[in-house]
């Protein structure tokens, strides 16, 4: 094997933090190299240096043994480095072919030659097993296919080194498997791949070599043969991590949430939740498993009063809460960890203390009449920040400056500090690092043991399997099966999530 890329003692500091501290990285030709680390470990900064988005304070980059200067993304592209970002840079109303050739259009008689372009893309996708229709509109494609378009886009621009930033964050387990297949095919044809992630299972499944970063430094480089999940987690976090959630058997009590024949429409007025019924009992975690886009968002928003119910009934603690206002629902004892923490969960321009009273600011001790008691708000904030281990320079730091993990802890602190009987947790650990996931899982189990009923909606099957006492599978807006967690297997759930029912069950 020959070395495709060497990064030598690359450093980059931001005010107050050393994001990359003298990092060395070697990438062989035809290798899939995983860059593993928690949020804030320096993975993305390092790759942004390589892609020319940041300038390193120190350090050098060698491509095929030759030192190069990369000061802009266009330098990186012309030297054969391609990057697939976490958020796709595609134009939804353009076709696949149009998106791919954008910026380097093929012309015939000074007109856009769509035919030739499509032909070239087709040949190209064939070579690497990237099955994409060049004439399809990007907006009609599932996320997994959109990602393929991004990969083809990079290859089309002559990439030999492909950087993928958290590529599986948006994919279903099946889509992730497809992606791994494609990456292996690319590597076998001589492309080198850097795979940024914080998911341990993936690393072991796909990588040839693994470099672990922590606090801007390389902790070590290993291979899947030598490493285990526990060992990698320890390298990442710097201490031993409990990967499995410790919990006692559930003691289900009374029904705290009863949903009957619920119908909810999405933004485009299509039926997203279609005659769904479920029950959550106190002291139990009901996990709702399913592929993203099967009505999860609409279900959660209908229960919490954020979206109108078209028909059916929602009963919380025996009271009818169908189309109740969010305030009425909150006051009846519901906590909600929202799916989109930046859209619903936080006011990013508010300090932490204010975010911690976002739904209780009008009640004593935080307000007397209409006047807010700032001392009470501050005391409450400081107490919760300490109790929930939110890492922030001060209680008045703006919420938007925190890392995703700390933002989520902030939301959990607010929601779990209220006396509640029902917790609705939607994708509570999406995009978080191992340490924060461990923390939030423990808190969910604590809430359960304290007698809360918990509705856990997650697209992470592992999360459902390790936390839920009972698993309901959501498919096309309906619960198509409910299984006790003890009897469920990933294979069986995977099939149900794809809409395949067991024989005779229909």
């Amino acid at each position, binding site marked *: 094997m020959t070395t495709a890329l060497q990064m030598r003692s690359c450093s980059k500091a931001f005010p107050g*933090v050393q*994001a990359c501290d003298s990092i060395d990285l070697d990438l062989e030709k035809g290798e899939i190299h995983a860059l593993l680390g928690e949020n804030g470990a320096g993975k993305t900064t390092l790759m942004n240096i390589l892609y020319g988005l940041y300038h390193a304070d120190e350090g050098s980059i060698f491509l095929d043994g030759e030192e190069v200067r990369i000061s802009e993304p266009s330098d990186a592209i012309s030297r054969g480095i391609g990057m697939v970002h976490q958020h796709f840079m595609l134009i939804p109303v353009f076709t696949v072919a149009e998106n791919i050739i954008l910026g380097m259009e093929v012309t015939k008689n000074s007109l856009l030659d769509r035919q030739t372009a499509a032909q070239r893309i087709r040949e190209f996708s064939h070579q690497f097993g990237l099955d994409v229709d060049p004439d399809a509109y990007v907006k009609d494609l599932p996320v997994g296919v959109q990602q393929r378009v991004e990969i083809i886009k990079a290859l089309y621009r002559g990439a030999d080194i492909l950087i993928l930033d958290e590529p599986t964050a948006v994919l279903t387990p099946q889509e992730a498997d497809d992606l791994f297949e494609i990456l292996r095919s690319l590597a076998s044809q001589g492309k080198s791949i850097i795979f940024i992630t914080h998911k341990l299972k993936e690393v072991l499944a796909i990588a040839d070599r693994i470099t672990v970063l922590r606090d801007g430094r390389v902790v070590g480089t290993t291979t899947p043969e030598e490493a285990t999940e526990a060992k990698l987690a320890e390298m990442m976090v710097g201490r031993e991590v409990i990967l499995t959630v410790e919990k006692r058997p559930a003691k289900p009590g009374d029904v705290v949430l009863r949903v009957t024949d619920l119908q909810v429409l999405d933004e485009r007025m299509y039926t997203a939740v279609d005659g769904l019924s479920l029950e959550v009992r106190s002291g139990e975690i009901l996990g709702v498993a399913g592929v993203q886009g099967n009505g999860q968002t609409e279900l959660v928003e209908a229960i919490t009063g954020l979206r109108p119910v078209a028909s059916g009934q929602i009963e919380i603690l025996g009271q009818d809460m169908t189309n109740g206002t969010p305030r009425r629902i909150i006051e009846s004892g519901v906590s909600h960890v929202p799916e989109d923490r930046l859209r619903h969960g936080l006011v990013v321009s508010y300090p932490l203390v204010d975010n911690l009273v*976002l739904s209780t600011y009008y009640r004593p001790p935080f307000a007397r009449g209409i006047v807010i008691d700032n001392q009470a708000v501050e005391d409450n904030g400081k107490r919760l920040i300490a109790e929930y281990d939110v890492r922030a320079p001060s209680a008045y730091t703006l919420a938007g400056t925190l890392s995703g993990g700390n933002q989520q802890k902030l939301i959990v602190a607010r929601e779990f500090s209220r006396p509640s009987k029902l917790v609705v947790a939607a994708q509570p650990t999406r995009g978080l690092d191992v340490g924060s996931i461990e923390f939030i899982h423990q808190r969910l189990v604590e809430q359960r043991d304290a007698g809360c009923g918990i509705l856990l909606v997650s697209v992470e099957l592992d999360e459902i399997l390790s936390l839920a006492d009972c698993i309901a599978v959501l498919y096309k807006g309906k619960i198509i099966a409910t299984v006790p967690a003890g009897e469920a297997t990933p294979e069986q759930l995977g099939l149900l999530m794809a809409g395949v029912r067991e024989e005779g069950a229909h």
Partner: protein
Amino acid sequence: MTAEAKKATQASPAWLTALPEMAVPVLAVLTALVIGAIVIWASGANVLVAYRGLLEGALGSMRGISETLVIVTPYVLSGLAVMLGFRCGLFNIGVEGQFYMGALFSVYVGFAVKGLPIYLHLPLAVLAGAVGGALWAAIPGFLKAKLGVHEVTNTIMLNYIAVKTVDYLVKNPLRDKASTIPRTPYIATSATLPQLLPPYRVHLGLFIALAAILVVYWFLWKTTLGFEIRSVGANPDAAKYAGMSPTRNFVLAMVLSGTLAGLAGTSEVLGTNRNLPAAFISGYGFDSIAIALLAKSHPFGILPAAFLWAALRNGAGLMQVRAGVSIDLINIVQALVIIFVAADEIIRRLYRIKRPREKISDVVFTRGWGH
């Protein structure tokens, strides 16, 4: 900004990190004046003479200072009106119309009610002006809350209606028959905002304006209602999630904004004009948008911004007399200030002021249509 950079800790105290931020509007003003100087020089006039005239006209005599403060009063109130809307994510372009309605209501109570002592009549007239502005602003507030109509369109249209309505009323039913020019009768002495230092025109309205700054600050940052308005402005989805009602807050913020705009009109008729003429072209409503922008939508920024605008407007006359520079130059300077404040990247590049690492704006000037 990446997650890595977010790890950066903010060690220095808040006021110190805020200092370069406050420098941006100040430098914007200075830069605009420098460019204004170039324009004066290019037009063949003497820059020093012109700017000296501007300064003396605005602040060079007791009369100049008094006249500047007379203009500061409605500027502060109307600037607060626009600012309060911004804080709720609303762009109230209707301050001009609400200003007219405030002037109309207060002048009517001022001349039509008779025989009340000043301690009843004056508060009543002021209250009437506040109500006039509030009612006029409530219309677009309700239209937005109930029907989702964007407030920008409605407030613009209501401006025309307000101006024409006032014009009709002043020329017809409310006209002072004894006067040769179309205007309402003079208000009673008992409804007049007293002069602070006779014979200078600066009047009690100035104190109302200064008090309004404190009240608006207290309301927005120390009360639950203000907390709701700011939350809805900063993130309506999160506000709704937390149990607040965005629509209710839209109405409340519009009504309060209209109240302030109405008070601006009130101070103009009860303090400065003492009647409402047909050719009552204020322009305050539109300048107030500029003032709120320059103040970075903070009540404490309103006073310096209003003072600057008032001084420019008041000093322009003497500048024209002394240096032969058209008063329109002031419009150029004001426009440049707004450009530099709105596109602050120009100022940051020019003076090497680093953008804060995490630029999190707590004010959304206006949201998309149909939101």
